[in-house]
């Protein structure tokens, strides 16, 4: 089979989304890509379809997770070589699938895996490759306006690309919002493709999950952050305990760092780090503009403070007017009690 570009047929343009998995779990980013793909497909009167690579064992759980959000047709490739990521297996699988499906566009996450094998796929098929895209819009004359981010986000490069020439676009997390879960369970068509998948040349030895305690706060999914209101260095134990219970990392405002309560690596704000976790719990932080600049793009912001006038309440999704020393330990206990209840149930 050769890889000729799609002939100008009356068939509506096809936008494929690669649903990426990391260690047997779907990446949230895949849903963000789906949202972007839907938007683009709507503007070119195209259709969206989803690609999933899985093994026999993981098939059911991954499909279930996918079906919560996806109403589009799903292309499934099931093979034992997908038990772990390898450049060779993913490349060979996607190359064959793209030859069958002949899409106009393929959306992929600009993740370590995505950036590892997508260039090789593009090379084998002679597709165009647009790394680290921001968004793609339709321009006139069946052409796409593709914006690529370079120079550490300081430059945008725009390209006019014909929709008829197939292309792979990779995108980083946070470019689009993930669509909400479908209310009525959709029942999309699931097509299984039996393909010959190459074996990987690189052997996986060990998976090393992140330790929230030592994780760089810019990579953390959840942050528990404290400020001057915590009172002293010893009181940060309250926040640490909550962070451990939540599986979150500890962060701090400049005030707490300057007082020597928390190390500088954990400082959020203009003179520290800019973070975008899914959850940011700010305790005892008043929210000077320098701090807000570093965290206001977090997914959900929870505030615990005794001062109703504190500016941090202006960015909060959920605020608690109260003393963190009273509220947080109770919350920690509540979460731990919940975990204990859950453990015997799952061990059955």
């Amino acid at each position, binding site marked *: 089979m050769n890889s000729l570009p799609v002939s100008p047929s009356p068939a509506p343009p096809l936008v494929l989304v690669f649903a990426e998995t990391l260690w047997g779990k779907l990446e949230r980013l895949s849903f963000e890509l789906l949202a972007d793909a839907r938007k683009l497909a709507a503007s070119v009167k195209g259709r969206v379809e989803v690609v999933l690579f899985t093994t026999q064992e993981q098939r059911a759980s991954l499909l279930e997770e996918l079906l919560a959000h996806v109403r589009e047709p799903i292309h499934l490739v099931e093979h034992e070589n997908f038990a772990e990521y390898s450049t060779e297996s993913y490349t060979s699988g996607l190359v064959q699938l793209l030859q069958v499906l002949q899409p106009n566009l393929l959306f992929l996450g600009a993740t370590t895996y995505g950036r590892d094998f997508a260039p090789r796929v593009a090379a084998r098929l002679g597709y165009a*490759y647009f790394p680290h895209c921001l968004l793609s819009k339709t321009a006139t004359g069946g052409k796409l306006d593709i914006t690529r981010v370079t120079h550490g986000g300081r*430059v945008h490069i725009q390209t006019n690309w014909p929709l008829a020439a197939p292309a792979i676009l990779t995108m980083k997390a946070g470019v689009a919002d993930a669509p909400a879960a479908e209310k009525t369970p959709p029942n999309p068509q699931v097509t299984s493709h039996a393909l010959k998948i190459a074996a990987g040349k690189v052997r996986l030895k060990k998976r090393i999950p992140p330790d929230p305690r030592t994780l760089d706060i810019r990579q953390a999914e959840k942050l528990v952050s404290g400020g001057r209101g915590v009172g002293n260095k010893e009181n940060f134990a309250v926040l640490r305990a909550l962070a451990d219970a939540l599986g979150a990392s500890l962060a701090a405002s400049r005030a707490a760092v300057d007082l020597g309560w928390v190390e500088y690596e954990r400082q959020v704000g203009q003179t520290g780090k800019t973070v975008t976790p899914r959850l940011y719990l700010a305790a005892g932080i008043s*929210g000077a503009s320098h701090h807000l600049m570093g965290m206001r793009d977090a997914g959900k912001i929870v505030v615990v403070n005794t001062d109703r006038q504190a500016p941090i309440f202006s960015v909060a999704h959920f605020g608690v007017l109260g003393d963190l020393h009273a509220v947080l330990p109770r919350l920690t206990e509540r979460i731990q009690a919940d975990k204990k209840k859950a453990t015997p149930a799952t061990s059955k």
Partner: protein
Amino acid sequence: MKVLHTTPFKIAVCLKEVLDARLPLKVEAKTGAIQQDAPEPVVTLNPADRSALEFAMQLREQSPGSRVEVFSVSDVAGQAALWYGLARGADDAERIEGSGKGAPYTAALLATRFHKETFDLICCGDETLDNSSALVGPLLAEILDLPQVTGVVRIVECSKSSILVERGLERGSRELVEMDLPGLITLKAESVPWRYVSYQKLEEAQLRNIPVRRETLPTSSNGLPKWPEQATPTAPRARVKKSFTPDSKMSPADRVRMIMAGGAAPQESKSKSSVVEGDAEYVSEQLYRFLKHHEFV
């Protein structure tokens, strides 16, 4: 890093000199030229490439007899990267010239060079500071039909036949993987601590004559992704997430507070958010429910 059976390695390191994008940049509106706000452009060796170079040098230190050669696809003006490589102690440097622009051509030119001479290990940077396509490493491996590990953050062990490395994944997860040699790895910036190069060494390196090799690419572009020739750089425009007009009924103090909050619109967020108060038992339960509702616990 542990080196087993100290056998000599032959290592190639690919380097690129880049405009330091960590400093302010501006995009010329008419020509689309990307410039620095300075009389002279501030260039640097790409940070990820520096990690690759540093790793290669450390490997050579631990296995005597090894050779490190540095390569760069660039014009004369861009050869400072090679000078740096030589100053850091690379045995040889070579500049490669060729037609075509863009990451796929860079990979193809390097590949034609590596077709003529086999290396045990090719080390590249994970991505460049300027173009950030992260394309050269995987493409080079594809053309040379080599195994690859991209996004390496730590090298654990090295033997003549294989290399054990940790690759960085999403949100701080890592994976320990083993790859047979010959192979290609790309290293992330900051993954290997750098050593400084003395000024004297740098001056000595600049006096060395760096050989140039002109490579010609096979005329058909088969085996390469298409790379758009026509591209317009622009300065990123601030994306407006929401705009608001200050409520004239608000007191000046409130308006100031709103500005202090970094432009967050309090009218909107107040309606969305809820603030609970009461005794600690009650509010912590409410807080727990909020976290539960959004699946954080």
